[in-house]
Structures are given as C-alpha cells and as structure tokens.
C-alpha cells in the first residue's frame, strides 16, 4: 500500500491495512536488529525529537535506539508539563522545535489528546508515545507484532486483558487495535477499574478473572498503579493479587499454548506471580525487543524515503 499518513497518534485512526503495513515493515527491521552492526542509513541526516513531558525511560530509550539504528540524529527534550500561566505554552514549545526542522516529533504527555493537537498544528510528523489515559499506539503495535509472531495471526484469537483498564492507555490502544484486526477481546478487573460503558468497544467484560482467561490464547496483564489504592479503587495489594493476580493455578484455565504479556514495569507478586513472569510462556522481554522494531517501522514510514508517497514493500 502507499503510506500517506503524516502522523500516528492512535490506533483509532489506523485501518487494518495500515496496521498490517506497520507490522510487516517492523518484521523486516527485526533482521537489522539481529545483525552485528545494527544500523541502516535510511534516515541519515534527519532528526527525531523525543519530547517527553512525563518521565519514561523505557519508551524514550526504545524510540532513541530505533532512531539511531536508522541513522537519524536524536534529541531528547524533557519538560515538566506546564499549564498556561506558568510560562511557555505547549504550542509555543513545539513551534520552537519545529523551527529547527526535525523530521519527527515523538511526544509523551500526561494530557489526553495532546499529540492530536500537535498533529493538527505542525507540518512535521507526530508520533504519540502515550497521552494521558488515552492511547499508546506503539505499545499496542508491538504487542500485536508479538502475538502475530507467536500465533501466526491475530484474527480469531481470544485475548484477555486484565487489570486497570480505565486508566490504561495501553489497554485502550490494544482493545481498538486487536478488535480491528479480528481478535475477540475480553477485559477483566475490579468494577472500579473497568469503564462503565466498556462493552461499547466490542469487548466482553468480566469481574471474574478465572472466567475471563478461560480458553484464552493471550493473557495481557496490566501494571497496577499502587496510588489507586489510596484513591480507594481497590482495598489492598493482597486482595488485588488474590482476585486479579496471574499465578500458575489460574493460568491452567487458559489454552495450553497461551502466551503471557505485560507492558512493564511489573509489580511482581501483585498483578503477576514471579513464576509466571519468568516462565517460558512469558513473552515480556520479547515484547521489549519488538518495541524497537515497531518504532523503527513508524519512523521509517513517517520520515523515510518512502514516507511521502512511495510504495512500501
């Protein structure tokens, strides 16, 4: 297909064809990541700006490595989220960066919709590296690449996503992407952590984790944020682990070849037992490797020689 999109701000905007193109492109970059000299000249002379208003060493490092393997120059710009009145506005900051002519801005921001605002206002490409509780498209794409690698397909699989759905941008992007690609998605968690109208996403929701993972092909565990306990959304880590933690006993309900995923960082012993996290069925570290390939694919499609109007293999 011909890639025409300037920005990737969310899975909600991407068609099946576009998602497939990104996954296929990432597959071809995996080979680069196996080489001894892990570098191709594709984006030589181009600059990628990582604009992070929220600390995230993992995602930022993954984008930075991806850019460097494509021979792009990278600049990391961390800022604290400043609201109006406390100095320069977000739009002014970004207009300043744009005036230095980078090829791409990768943005992480605590406010939902910020990448969408920027994408409308600047001419250069914008990649969403996580916006509030809205979307985290590169994470969902790497998860989908992982599933496709192991299972050979996404269509027709049953994926259970367990944990804090309501505050999770990873869950939202995965729900949108996986259902669009034909998977059956179940979500599970305590009622305080599931949005009231979640079924409108075309998913099944469960308060009972055992039912949710019954016969699942993929179990995706989400990180539980311990400050939610202070907000009285669940009573204790202990109770959470008892009802929504993934342990070996529970795992037996899933398909025998079910895989386990987690976007990290994990709370061992809370949402996931150590014996599960370290088992052969756990793909948690492979996800991280796939993250670099996915981010290379996004940078390549948006800024590469074929970025504007060329054909992508």
């Amino acid at each position, binding site marked *: 297909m011909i890639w025409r999109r300037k920005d990737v701000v969310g899975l*909600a905007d991407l068609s099946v064809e576009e998602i497939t193109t990104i996954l296929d492109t990432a597959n071809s970059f995996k080979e680069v990541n196996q080489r001894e000299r892990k570098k191709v000249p594709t984006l030589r002379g181009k600059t990628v700006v990582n604009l992070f208003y929220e600390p995230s060493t993992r995602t930022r490092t993954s984008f930075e490595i991806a850019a460097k393997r494509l021979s792009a120059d990278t600049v990391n710009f961390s800022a604290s989220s400043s*609201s*109006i009145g406390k100095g320069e*506005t*977000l*739009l002014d900051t970004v207009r300043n960066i744009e005036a230095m002519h980078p090829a791409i801005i990768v943005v992480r*921001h605590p*406010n*939902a*919709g*910020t990448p*969408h*605002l920027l994408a409308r206002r600047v001419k250069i490409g914008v990649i969403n590296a996580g*916006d*509030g*509780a*809205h*979307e985290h498209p590169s994470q969902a794409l790497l998860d989908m690449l992982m599933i496709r690698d192991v299972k050979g397909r996404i269509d027709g699989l049953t994926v259970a996503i367990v944990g804090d759905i*309501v505050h999770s*941008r990873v869950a*939202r992007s995965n729900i949108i992407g996986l259902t669009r690609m034909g998977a059956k998605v179940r979500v599970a968690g305590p009622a305080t952590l599931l*949005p*009231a*109208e*979640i079924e*409108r*996403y075309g998913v099944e929701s469960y308060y009972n984790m055992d039912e949710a993972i019954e016969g699942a092909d993929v179990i995706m565990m989400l990180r539980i944020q311990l400050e939610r306990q202070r907000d009285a959304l669940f009573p204790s880590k202990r109770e959470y682990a008892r009802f929504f933690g993934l342990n070996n006993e529970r795992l037996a309900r899933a398909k025998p070849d079910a895989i386990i995923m987690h976007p990290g960082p994990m709370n061992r012993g809370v949402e996931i037992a150590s014996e599960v996290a370290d088992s052969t069925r756990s793909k948690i570290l492979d996800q991280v490797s796939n993250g670099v390939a996915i981010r290379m694919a996004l940078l390549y499609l948006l800024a590469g020689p074929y970025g504007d109007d060329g054909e992508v293999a």
Partner: protein
Amino acid sequence: MKTIIRGGRVIDPVRDIDGVRDVIIDDDGRLAGVEPAADSPRDVEVIDATGFLVLPGLIDLHVHLREPGFEQKETIATGARAAVAGGFTAVCCMANTNPVNDHVSVTRLILDRAREANLARVYPLGAVTRGLAGEVLAEMGELRDAGCVGFSDDGRCVMVSSVMRNALVYARTFDVPIAVHAIDETLAGRAVMHEGEHSMRLGLSGVPSAAEDFMVARDCVLARHAGARLHVQHVSTKGAVEIIRVAKGYGVRVTAEGTPHHFTLIDEDVGDYDTYFKMAPPLRSAEDREAVIEGLADGTLDAIATDHAPHESLVKDCEFENAANGIIGLETALPLSWDLVRAGRLSVRRCVELLTSGPARAFDLPYGLTKGAPADITIFDPDARYVFTADRIRSLSRNTPFVGRDMVGEVVRTIVGGRTVFTR
C-alpha cells in the same frame, strides 16, 4: 415624541397577548399601551415590525461579565453590547470576578459601569460565601440593599452541607434566592467532560451525572426544610430534571434554568478534543439533552439562561485538560431556542416565557409589556436565515462552537427604556 411599533406579532405570555398589535411607547420611554392596529396619529415615530415578533425584552439570569478582574475576556460594556445584540434587555452577572462580588464596593462598581455603558440592564448576583470559599457567609443583606438580586458562588459549589443550609436559611431573612452551581466536587474531581462512552474513547476523566444529581437533591432537601428559595443553574442531567420535578411536586420553592448549549449539543460533539465544547457542567448524553428539553417544555425548568462565559483565545488554544471552561452565549441564545420551536419541541409562547417571565419571576425582576413600565422590547425576525460568523460577534471574546452554524431567526432591534440600543 411617541413611538409606535407597528404591524408585528406581539407576544406577552403574562398578559396573554399573541397577535398583531401596535405597541405604543410614550415620550418618556414608558409603555403607553398595546392596542389593535389603528391609523397613526401625527408626530410619532413608526417602527415597521411587519413579519417580525415583538417580545418583552429578554432576560438572562446567568452571564459572566468578567469585570472587575478579567477585562481581557469581557467588560461590562462589551458584555452589555453582546447582550442587546442577542435581544437581552437585562442580564444577571455572576460574582466570580476578581475581586469577588462579596462586598458592596464591587456591586457598586458593577452598577456604575453598567450605567455608563447604558445598554442592557445589569443585575448583579452577590457571592453566597466570602471569596467563594464555601466557608463564611457573605453580607447578603447589605449586598441586596446595594442592588444584588440573588446570590451564587457559581463556578464553585458550596460543598459543606451545613454552610449551604445556613446560607439558605439566612437568605430567608431577605427572601432572596440562592442560585447553585450544583456539582459534587469530590465526585467530579479534576474531570473535564461528561463521563460516558466518549470520555472513555478520548481517555479523559469524566464528571459522572451523579455529581450533579446528588447536589441538586441535597439542595432541594435543604431548601425544603429551610422553606428557602433555591435556583438551580445550568441543569444538564436527566436525573437533576427528575429531582427538580419531584421537588416542585412537594412544594419546594425551587426554580431552574437550562442553557442553549445543553439543549443543543452532546458530549460526542467534543469530537477530537475540541476545547470550544468544554464547559462546566459538561455537555451530557443525548438522553440528558432530551430530558432538559422536556423539562423546559413541561415547566420543570423555568428559564433559558446562557451561562455566557467569555475567554480569550489563549486559554482555549491548548490541551483539552488545561483549557478553560465555558462558551459565550448571549448572541446565539435566541436562534438556538427558536430551533426548539421550529422542531415542535416548544410552543412559541413557552419559548417566550422561558426567556422573559420565567427568569424574571425566579429573581423578582420587572418584566412584560405592562402599561407605565419602562419599555424594554426585543424585535425578532423568525425567518431570517444566515450563517453565524465570527465577525458578527460583539462580545470581546469569541469562544463559541457555533461559529459556522446555519441559524434561523435573528434579533433586528432591541429597545431598553424606550430607546433603541441595537439594530441589525
């Protein structure tokens, strides 16, 4: 010189007038009468209103004029200019200025500036609590004597029930209404739109309808026991409409208002983080919008009020979560209300009531085409078709999602005290 407004369809729900009449204004600006059309005597100015509606001057119970303190958003003069362009001859302005209108010096400043502007009548609302802090009552008696017609901490909710109870009981002393921005702030938290499917999709935290329902219920209960007058501002949820309906049935002295944006738009209109659709209370679901319209039609809600909330572009041109709440409304309220008439949801008479006698009764304001009263009149062309463009806006701010919208119905002349203060 006398003036005669000739040939228009005169509607005054209170005096039960609806038909083609002459409206005669004396040379001192008072109404001399509403009479069957007759030949003009000599020495009169004739305003031809053929094909137009001739209405008692519209009254808006809920505007933010931003002066003192936020003159970059609106001043009393620019707000009054927008009011008369929208057909409003009188507006009630909220106390969340800087300094807050919790002291007679602020009330006097507002009234002085309104007198200088000499356009719409401006009736200030005083604060319920000092500094809108929700703790100590403002000096309501003195503020009433200085010209405040009611009290509201609008923008904030008086969260402590005992303080709210005392405010309602104390206000009985002067028989003044307490108007409420009813949102339980502990339930709303820092949420920025209606809690529902669309907030879930956008990843924005939502204000649950329960936050409004609950506070409306609390205040109706408190008003009932206090025997006090309560006015519920900008009703946005189905639950709140139902609670007010029940409360009225119990004889609670409660009045309420609905805004044009809540009866026209819904949460889905926020689209892709469009900050012009961000307000408090937020745009609700289609079901809630329907309930507000039903409430307006059946008398549960007494008034259409705009919650005119001007903001400079800087505080709207940013991330949705950081954007200021509110839209301007004075210049679009009548055509948007007229849409409900055209859709068969409100009768013409009911629509006029909601914009004139309904609000007037809630805050004891003068109204209607009464002989001897100052002639406040709005002349409205119900068939005019146009696109609402930004350059029509007379308000100092332009934060409205209605720019670009096709409108039907246009104010052609506004008369305050017998003097034409606006013509199209």
